[in-house]
């Protein structure tokens, strides 16, 4: 394996001693095949054990290791060192408060995720004997793309609307709400609409499209949000122009 001297410029912040974050530079020999997360692990193990960051699976599934790498929201486990030249700048995910170094406070996202009820809401209780809730391949296909979200929050770091208006429910949570709304087994749309069809929901989105561009799982949250806008608009017309058809 060929080695290369990699220079990382990492944003550091210790809430107990620092008034504001500062960059710290590390230079480490790394194999070309490594990803940024490997380099951070190497630094933590051999150079600076105080460096803090989140990670878990190292295979783009857990969604923990999102960071800004050269200003772009990325999963550090999926960002190969060989794709970068010069000093690699590593910062915590944008638009989230910094807890320590590369660790952000994600409570806001978790709260919003709960608000949109990201789970199947059954219409009417069925006895176990009634069997499974069956679904055709076409019904599965309708929402399958949105099931790939790993809650990594890269879309929130890319979304300027979320940066400017933190009340915005945001791309991932609304996409997950859309995923369950599209599910033929679900009956929870009306409850979710209270959250996502509101001002702080889809109407805060101006279709920048950055969320879809950075999504590591190609979920296309921007598409989901526009579809929710269209359906919510149709709801409005139905309610105001055709009250007899209200369901």
């Amino acid at each position, binding site marked *: 394996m060929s080695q290369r001297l990699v220079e990382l410029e990492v944003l550091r912040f210790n809430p107990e001693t620092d008034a504001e974050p500062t960059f710290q530079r590390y230079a480490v020999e790394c194999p070309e095949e490594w990803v940024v997360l490997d380099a951070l692990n190497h630094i933590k193990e051999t150079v600076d054990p105080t460096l803090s960051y989140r990670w878990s699976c190292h295979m783009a599934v857990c969604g923990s290791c999102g960071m800004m790498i050269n200003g772009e929201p990325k999963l550090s486990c999926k960002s190969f060192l060989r794709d970068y030249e010069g000093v690699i700048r590593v910062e915590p995910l944008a638009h989230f408060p910094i807890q320590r170094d590369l660790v952000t406070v994600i409570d806001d996202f978790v709260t919003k995720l709960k608000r949109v009820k990201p789970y199947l809401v059954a219409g009417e209780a069925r006895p176990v004997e009634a069997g499974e809730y069956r679904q055709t391949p076409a019904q599965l296909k309708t929402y399958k793309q949105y099931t790939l979200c790993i809650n990594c929050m890269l879309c929130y770091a890319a979304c*300027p609307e979320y940066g400017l208006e933190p009340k915005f429910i945001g791309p991932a949570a609304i996409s997950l709400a859309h995923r369950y709304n599209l599910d033929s087994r679900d009956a929870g749309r009306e409850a979710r609409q209270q959250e996502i069809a509101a001002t702080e929901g889809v109407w805060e989105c101006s279709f920048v*499209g950055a969320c879809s561009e950075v999504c590591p799982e190609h979920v296309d949250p921007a598409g989901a949000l526009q579809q929710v806008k269209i359906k919510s608009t149709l709801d409005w017309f139905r309610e105001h122009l055709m009250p007899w058809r209200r369901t």
Partner: protein
Amino acid sequence: MTVKPYVRAVPRYTWFLAHSRYLRYITREVTCVFIGAYAFLMLVGLKRLAEGREAWEAFVQALASPASLVFHVAVLAFALYHTTSWFNVTPKAMPIQLGDGFVPGRVIVGAHYAIWIVLSLAVLILAGVF
């Protein structure tokens, strides 16, 4: 939590300079100003038409001025960017599912361009260009 997290402020008026994709977005949004300006110009034209032959001919003459030509070229460029940038994102907003698959995005975008061309030709024919 006993310690206060650090909050990085987003610059309210210059945030779109932070990334090329934000600049692309703001350009798309700014195009509406030019579309609006042209719509206003058409309203002025209608008013002049209603005022009679003299007012209309003065309006047509004003349209031939160099400043007006520059304005029209700029508006055309922004209108094209406005149209293409919105057409290209239509498959996101209006996906069409047929059975187990989705209609390819390029078909949806292509349909928009086709309708655009047909409508433009219809307008030109009605205007007696051909």
